[in-house]
C-alpha cells in the first residue's frame, strides 16, 4: 500500500501541470505480469497464524476504463493470479513447528494445491494527459474469487491424543477486496496504446477449515488474508 501511495503522490505532482482538460478515450487492455505476495500473505513464519506461504507468481487479465466526464471515469479489472504453492522448505518449517508445538517424536506435513484467485475490481479513475502519455490513477474495490489455497495434511507420532492426521483444508469462496493502481500508457495512435501498471490488492481473504484435530496445539489457521502487489505490461484498445 505504501508503494502505491508513493507512486500516486509523485505522479500527481509530476502531472499536476499536465493537460487535464482533454477528453480521454475509453479503453480496454489486455495485460500480464508478476503478482507478488506481500506481508503475511508471503510470510513463512509458522508462529504467525496468518502466514500464507504464497509465492511470486503470474497475473493475466483485462483492464479498462470508461470515461464519464473528461478525464474522470470508471475503471475496472478482471484478472487471474497464481501465487504458487508450498515448497519443501515451507512444509519442513510447518513440520518442525508442529513437532515443537506438540513435542511430538516426529511430524510429517504433506502440502497439495496452489494459490489461485480471480479479481473483479471496479472504481473511480482519473487520468492525466501529457502529449502521448496518459497517467491513470485508480482506487478500486470488488470481489475476489479464491478458487484454491494449498491444503496441508499433518501426521504426528508419539502423541496419544492426536493419533490420526489432521487437515488444513483447501479454502475457496468469494471475499471483498480493495486496492489502488497507477498506470502509465503511451499512445501508439488513435486506437492503440501500451502501458505499464502497478497495482495493490488486499483482502481479509477466505475462511480456512481445520478438521481432524483432536488436540489443538501451535499453529491454527482460520482465515487466509490476501495482499498482492502486481507489476504488469499491457496493450490497450482505445474507443
Amino acid at each position, binding site marked *: 500500500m505504501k508503494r502505491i501511495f508513493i507512486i500516486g503522490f509523485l505522479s500527481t505532482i509530476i502531472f499536476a501541470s499536465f493537460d487535464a482538460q482533454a477528453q480521454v478515450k475509453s479503453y*480496454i487492455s*489486455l495485460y*500480464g505480469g508478476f503478482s507478488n505476495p506481500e506481508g503475511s500473505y508471503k510470510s513463512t513464519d509458522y508462529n504467525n497464524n496468518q502466514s500464507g506461504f504464497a509465492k511470486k507468481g*503470474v497475473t*493475466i*487479465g*483485462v483492464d479498462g476504463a470508461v470515461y464519464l466526464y473528461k478525464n474522470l471515469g470508471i475503471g475496472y479489472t478482471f484478472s*487471474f493470479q*497464481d501465487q504458487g*504453492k*508450498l*515448497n*519443501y522448505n*515451507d*512444509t*519442513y518449517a*510447518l*513440520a*518442525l513447528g*508442529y*513437532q515443537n508445538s506438540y*513435542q*511430538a*517424536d*516426529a*511430524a*510429517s*506435513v*504433506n*502440502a*497439495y*494445491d*496452489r494459490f*489461485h484467485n480471480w479479481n473483479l475490481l471496479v472504481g473511480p479513475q482519473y487520468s492525466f494527459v501529457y502529449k502521448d502519455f496518459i497517467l491513470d490513477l485508480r482506487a478500486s474495490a470488488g470481489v475476489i474469487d479464491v*478458487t484454491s489455497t494449498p491444503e496441508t495434511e499433518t501426521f504426528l*507420532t*508419539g502423541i*496419544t491424543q492426536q493419533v490420526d492426521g489432521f487437515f488444513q483444508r483447501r479454502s475457496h469462496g468469494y471475499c471483498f477486496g480493495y486496492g489502488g493502481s497507477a498506470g502509465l500508457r503511451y499512445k501508439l495512435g488513435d*486506437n*492503440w496504446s501500451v502501458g505499464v501498471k502497478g497495482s495493490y490488492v488486499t483482502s481479509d481473504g477466505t475462511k480456512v477449515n481445520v478438521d481432524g484435530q483432536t488436540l489443538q496445539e501451535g499453529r491454527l489457521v482460520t482465515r487466509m488474508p490476501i495482499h498482492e502487489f502486481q507489476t504488469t505490461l499491457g*496493450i490497450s*484498445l482505445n474507443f
Partner: protein
Amino acid sequence: MNKFRLSVILILSVITAVAIQSCNKDTVSATAYTTKPLQADIDYVTWAPDTVSTTVTYDAASQTKTFSCTGTKSQKRVLFSVTLNSASNTPGFTLGIYPIDGSVVKAQYYTQQLSNGSYVFLPTGTSDSGSGAVEVTAIDSVKKTISGTFHFYSRTTNGDGSVTTNVISSGEFTTLPYVFTSN
C-alpha cells in the same frame, strides 16, 4: 481488424489463464524429527522417550563396569546395557561396537500390559545373540555424557506358533547425561 485482433488476444488470454490454473499441484512432503538425546524407531515409527535413566556402574567385587540405558514413553520401554570385564574404577567407558550376546551385552523391548489387575512393563519377546548391537562413539567422563547408537530386534513366539518381530532401529543417544556410581 482491431476487433479481430482483440478477439484473438482475448482467446489467448483465456487459454493462458486456464493453463496457469492447471499447473503443477503435486504434493510436497517434509518430516521433522525430535532432537531429544535418546530416540529410536520402534517398528519404523519414531519414538523418543520422555523418561530416561542412564548409568555407568563400577562393581569392585567383580571388577566390571556396566553402561545401562532405559527409556520409557507411550507404554513402551527400551533397555540396553553393556558390561566390561576387568574394568577400572573410573567414570569413563571404552568406545567401541558391542554386539548383543544376551550375556554381557543385552537389549530388551518392553510394553505395558495388564497383569494381575495392574499395568506393568513386561518383556516383549527376546533379543538373542546376534540380534543387534550397541555402539559407544563418544564419552565425556568429566561432564558425564555419552553418545552412540543401538539397534536390535525382539522376537515373540505366539500361541499359534507364528513369530512376531519388533524392530528397534536407528537408535541413537546423543550427549546423554549419565550417573556414575562405584560400589
